[in-house]
């Protein structure tokens, strides 16, 4: 699949037709989805109708949008008219179909993109694995025996496998950045409150974000620009002017002060994660190392808020339908329900403290680099891995490097880096609140330098 902006340029100039692009996309999904299990629904009829309408509109002289004819798919916690919003669960199969599309779907389609389906995910977004007991796991396009990462596993798998050039996911503790890392694609988690979450099934309101996956920085930026804007339907969405970034991507990184995160972020990281981080720092000429204070406690506080808000959200379902949960999710949620409330209040106080400390760091640096995951994708079904010499459970610990940043809603771009294991790994570019432009400019500079690359996985001869 050609990248999103190439498709839009081809269709906009009349060199390509949206119906041809869509036919090829649906054909590829039909061939490769049985391998990757990335999609849980394919909206082929809707997509072909939209593509035909777009071709007709362009033939009649209509101006094509910046995403004209670009196929995209969304994590199945995002509303799609006529589909049940599963959020990876069996229980939500009993819900009525969504009456309309989520605002982010509407905004992408208003820019010309065309929805092709809904994507697999971990149950209720409480995983970092991409495993799903009800649908089967979505698979890593670079090694289908391995995890796609989660919880937006289908999003990473579909984009990394080249089934679609653009996908949406959600990120509460790393659920965009982890699958982006494992599946070798770019992912953007914007500032908390930047992109509306209306029309999506929640997990942890204090920490939930939605955002895009793509195989180029320009694609990420164009999609992000199309989705920006206040939405009173999400009480967390902040009413502030749109800050378009696509036009400034190539303005370079001269003068930007960039440092690598040390200490916690180098402890437990595999050689591949550290090599990737160091190669990205070297490509940017970022020699400084910055120590982020109390980052372990930030991760713990995010963990507490997540498990308790998640338990509260699902309390009635835990009481009435415990056997219908994925056991891995249910057992964590039950544990979360038992935690002392004082820890939750303290975690929210600590969140304020940690934010203030990070803002001080951003007076010294414009961007901070950190690994996205401690290792490349584990094997599907793998329950433990070794971190810092200790055997640890996989599911709660893949997000150790992503959790501290989503905890305070900082914008992050995950960039894909090749490793010697023939599997990709991601590096996070973290910036001050509302400075997605800087993170994307840095990512673009890395793309131009060839340090961050998102090749399509070779899934067929």
């Amino acid at each position, binding site marked *: 699949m050609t990248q999103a902006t190439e498709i839009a340029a081809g269709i906009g100039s009349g060199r390509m037709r949206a119906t041809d692009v869509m036919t090829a996309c649906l054909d590829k999904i039909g061939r490769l989805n049985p391998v990757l299990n990335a999609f849980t629904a394919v909206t082929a009829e809707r997509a072909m109708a939209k593509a035909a309408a777009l071709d007709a509109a362009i033939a009649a002289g209509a101006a094509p949008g910046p995403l004209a004819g670009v196929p995209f798919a969304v994590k199945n916690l995002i509303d799609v008219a006529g589909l049940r919003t599963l959020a990876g669960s069996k229980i939500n199969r009993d819900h009525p179909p969504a009456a309309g599309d989520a605002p982010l779907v509407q905004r992408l389609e208003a820019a010309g993109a065309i929805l092709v389906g809904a994507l697999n995910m971990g149950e209720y977004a409480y995983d970092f694995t991409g495993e799903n007991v009800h649908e089967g796991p979505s698979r890593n396009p670079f090694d289908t025996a391995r995890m796609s990462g989660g919880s937006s596993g289908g999003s990473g798998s579909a984009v990394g496998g080249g089934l679609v050039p653009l996908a949406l996911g959600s990120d509460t503790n790393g659920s965009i950045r982890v699958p982006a890392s494992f599946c070798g694609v770019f992912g953007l988690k914007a500032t908390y409150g930047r992109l509306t979450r209306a029309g999506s099934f929640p997990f942890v309101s204090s920490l939930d974000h939605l955002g895009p996956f793509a195989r180029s920085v320009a694609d990420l930026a164009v999609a992000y620009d199309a989705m920006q804007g206040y939405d009173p339907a999400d009480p967390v969405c902040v009413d502030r002017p749109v800050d378009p970034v696509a036009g400034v991507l190539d303005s370079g990184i001269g003068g930007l002060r960039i440092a690598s995160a040390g200490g916690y972020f180098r402890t437990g990281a595999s050689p591949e994660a550290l090599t990737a981080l160091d190669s990205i720092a070297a490509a940017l000429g970022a020699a400084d190392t910055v120590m982020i204070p109390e980052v372990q406690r930030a991760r713990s506080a995010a963990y507490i808020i997540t498990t308790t808000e998640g338990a509260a959200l699902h309390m009635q379902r835990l009481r009435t339908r415990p056997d219908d949960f994925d056991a891995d999710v249910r057992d964590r949620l039950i544990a979360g329900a038992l935690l002392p409330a004082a820890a939750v209040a303290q975690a929210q*106080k600590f969140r304020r403290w940690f934010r203030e400390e990070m803002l001080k760091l951003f007076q010294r640096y414009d961007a901070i680099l950190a690994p996205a995951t401690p290792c490349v994708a584990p094997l599907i079904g793998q329950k433990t891995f070794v971190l810092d010499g200790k055997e640890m459970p996989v599911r709660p610990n893949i997000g150790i490097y992503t959790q501290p940043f989503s905890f305070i809603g900082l914008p992050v771009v995950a960039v894909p880096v090749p490793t010697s294991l023939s599997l990709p790994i991601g590096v996070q570019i973290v910036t001050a609140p509302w400075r997605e432009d800087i993170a994307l400019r840095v990512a673009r500079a890395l793309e131009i330098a060839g340090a961050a690359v998102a090749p399509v996985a070779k899934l067929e001869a």
Partner: protein
Amino acid sequence: MDEAALDAMIDTGTTILGIEMKPEWRAAVRMHLGISLSHAAVVLEAPLPDHLDPAPVFRA
């Protein structure tokens, strides 16, 4: 963390909350409760000023 104490917390908490606790779930719930409580301990040890406001977003 003491396994018996975790089990007591599981039994009391799930009873009070009206959540079923099947024997085959116990080992996993105990593991996750132990992990979560160790994170809670880290958070509760934070030496935060009394006047610090919590951070949830709410706008009337």
